[in-house]
């Protein structure tokens, strides 16, 4: 074994902390010797970790210079990413792990490492892809555009307009940034949101442990396991940041220490009151700590209002999590869950009335229907090609693996004497959401996201735990890190074939708005298109795969012929000139996620051949058609 390899082995063999996070100190002899060794090790590991990360970034950046995105298959980004990009990313994560070697990792080094890890894991698509990813991002930009133009919302347009907080804030940002459209601000949203998550996560973790290795290990785990891709320019990304901040404030400034039960506490309070008089003295009322707590509670309420005004699901996640903290007696604001419930209900009654009055029966039918929720979240997603099903299986395995590891970590910490209710309650509470809503088949993703910082803490506890229980010591970072990095890229970017839009698709969307008159009906294969970033309410946007004809077609042998007839009939029934739009991502989405299995592609070819349709615009990845007048109608 070479000297360098021996050195790397020594540095990557993570040393176990003592319970409570206190540094291990040698016994007898020269008392300064362990400290000197520790100092040397800390300095060496910092240098080594920075060198690893620098090498990793160089390899990763070089590898990204030539990635054939056009050749992506249903495995997503990993199908075209050069192995050297994964090696580079792996080295960066190894650098992060190497920086964890000292018992007290240097905060500046760890911050640098965390920033680099975020850049590599979450900035890859920002660097690689010339267009903004996710159809939803374009829609969000469109709603911001609508608010910028009209200065108000129309709750009848769709559900987004009933929770406009994020979009209204976005409209202010667009004005301040001096850009024409919010799309210009979306390219780097994921890494920026992930970096904004770092401070509240650190506050949360430091409220649970003084062991800095465990704190930063949990941060690393969070970033390596956050595959759910909900950090794009969206209300969810923003609401999750506020959710973390609220929990950070509650766990740091409103935490209740271990104490005797309520009866003892009440008795003590009565005794104090009898001793000092029934009412607190003015000096006590004016204590700085109380004033600050009132101020911080105002921040919690403000952030909660912003969550309630911006997103449908996060208020419920916050409500159940805060309620769990109060029930576990780890939050000294027992009325906060009541206030959150009132805020959420008030918003539903006054601002989201239009949406809820039309959909309340559908939403209430899902409450308690766990089977249906799990079916739409798990079984319904495991369809499509073999490659896509492999990605879905990997995601399930990654999620279950993390939860199992977290359970092991929680048990280990319990046996070490830690009472982690302040972390266990928020880790488990989001699971209640499964019983409330399927959230369009996405509730399991959100449950994973809301619990992730806390699950990451327990999982890191299992990996970095003391003595023989340290899984990281058993398996070794060099074996575990590459596995987690590949798993991250496969899971997070597994849908990239449909999340990514080629420049030709973006050009087609631009040409659509130049060529198609406002008010026209626009029927697309699916809504997975880079459109609606302007004129959000300017067209009658429809998707073939959103309609009953699609479900009926999939049950027939002549699916594409049937669809061709139905689409033609729908277009002919339109009051003004209708348009039909196909694009690579929209067609792939229908065939992969909507059970098409090639039906939409066959429909597109049938439309190409049909004399009933006329091409308005076409490039290699997208086409816009209109319908010719029916024979005999002049």
């Amino acid at each position, binding site marked *: 074994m070479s000297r360098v390899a021996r050195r790397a082995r020594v540095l990557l063999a993570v040393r176990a902390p003592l319970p409570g996070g206190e540094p291990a100190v040698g016994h007898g002899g020269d008392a300064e010797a362990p400290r000197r060794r520790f100092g040397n090790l800390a300095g060496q590991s910092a240098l080594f970790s920075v060198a690893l990360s620098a090498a990793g970034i160089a390899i990763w950046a070089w590898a990204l210079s030539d990635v054939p995105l056009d050749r992506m298959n249903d495995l997503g980004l990993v199908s075209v990413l050069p192995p050297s990009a994964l090696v580079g990313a792996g080295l960066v994560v190894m650098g992060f792990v190497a920086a964890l070697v000292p018992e007290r990792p240097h905060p500046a080094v760890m911050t640098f490492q965390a920033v680099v890890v975020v850049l590599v894991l979450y900035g890859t698509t920002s660097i690689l892809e010339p267009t903004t990813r996710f159809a939803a991002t374009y829609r969000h930009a469109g709603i911001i555009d609508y608010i910028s133009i009209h*200065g108000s*919302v129309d709750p009848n347009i769709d559900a987004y307009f009933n929770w406009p907080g994020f979009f*209204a*804030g976005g409209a202010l940002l667009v004005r301040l940034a001096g850009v024409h459209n919010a799309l210009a601000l979306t390219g780097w949203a994921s890494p*920026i949101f992930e970096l904004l998550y770092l401070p509240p996560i650190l*506050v949360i973790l430091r409220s649970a442990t003084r062991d800095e290795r465990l704190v930063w290990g949990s941060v690393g785990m969070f970033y390596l396991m956050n595959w759910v891709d909900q950090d794009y320019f969206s209300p969810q990304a923003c609401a999750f940041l506020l959710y973390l901040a609220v929990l950070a404030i509650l766990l740091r400034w409103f935490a209740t220490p271990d104490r005797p039960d309520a009866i003892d506490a009440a008795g003590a309070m009565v005794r104090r009151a009898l001793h000092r008089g029934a009412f607190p003295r003015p000096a006590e009322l004016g204590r700085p700590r109380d004033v600050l707590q009132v101020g911080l509670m105002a921040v919690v309420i403000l952030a909660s209002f*912003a969550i309630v005004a911006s997103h449908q699901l996060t208020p419920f996640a916050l409500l159940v999590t805060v309620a769990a903290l109060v029930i576990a007696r780890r939050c000294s604001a027992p009325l906060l869950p009541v206030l959150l419930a009132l805020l959420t209900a008030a918003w539903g009654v006054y601002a989201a009335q239009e949406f809820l009055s039309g959909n309340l029966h559908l939403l209430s039918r899902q409450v308690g229907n766990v089977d249906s929720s799990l079916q739409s979240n798990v079984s319904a997603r495991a369809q499509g090609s073999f490659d896509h099903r492999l990605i879905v299986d990997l995601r399930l395995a990654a999620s279950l693996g993390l939860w199992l590891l977290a359970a092991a970590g929680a048990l280990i910490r319990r046996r070490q004497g830690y009472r982690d209710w302040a972390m266990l309650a928020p880790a488990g509470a989001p699971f209640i959401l499964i019983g409330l809503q399927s959230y369009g088949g996405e509730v399991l993703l959100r449950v994973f996201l809301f619990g992730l910082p806390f699950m990451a803490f327990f999982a890191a506890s299992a990996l970095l735990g003391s003595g023989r229980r340290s899984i990281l010591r058993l398996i070794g970072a060099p074996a575990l890190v590459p596995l987690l990095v590949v798993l991250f890229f496969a899971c997070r970017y597994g849908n990239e074939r449909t999340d990514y839009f080629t420049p030709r698709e973006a050009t087609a969307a631009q040409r659509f708005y130049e060529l198609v008159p406002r008010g026209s009906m626009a029927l697309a294969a699916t809504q997975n298109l880079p459109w609606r970033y302007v004129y959000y309410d300017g067209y009658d946007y429809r998707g073939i795969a959103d309609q009953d004809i699609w479900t009926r077609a999939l049950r027939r042998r002549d699916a594409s012929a049937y669809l061709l007839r139905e689409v033609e009939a729908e277009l002919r029934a339109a009051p003004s000139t209708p348009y039909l739009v196909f694009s690579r991502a929209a067609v792939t989405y229908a065939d992969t996620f909507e059970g098409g299995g090639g039906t939409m592609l066959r429909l597109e070819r049938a439309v190409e051949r049909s004399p009933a349709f006329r091409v308005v615009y076409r490039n290699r990845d997208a086409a816009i058609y209109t319908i010719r007048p029916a024979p005999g109608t002049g």
Partner: protein
Amino acid sequence: MVRPLAWPGSVIAATVVLADMYATQVHSPIRAALAALWIALCPGLSLAWLLGAREAVPRLAVGSALSIGLTIAIATAMVYTRWSPWAGLGLLAMIALTCSLIELVAVARAAAA
């Protein structure tokens, strides 16, 4: 002395630069990046300090929640009443500047004492 002044100083500098770019209609990627960072952090950073979040990490956590929370609350209120981006951004800038000046004075006084 320099380090405690760096926080409010940065907020004031960013606010002034952005206000100047806004007023003179400068359109550049730098303005876009600065605006995104400003909205995410600046209005709440000094307010967080006034509320007792004085270490860097808790300050960033509370500051970002305050900044984004204030932006969304003000913008939402305007959407349901009267939309005026100029007034909304002016209010945010005023909060940022006032709190930063208070922090600046408090830090300077503490140093002098």
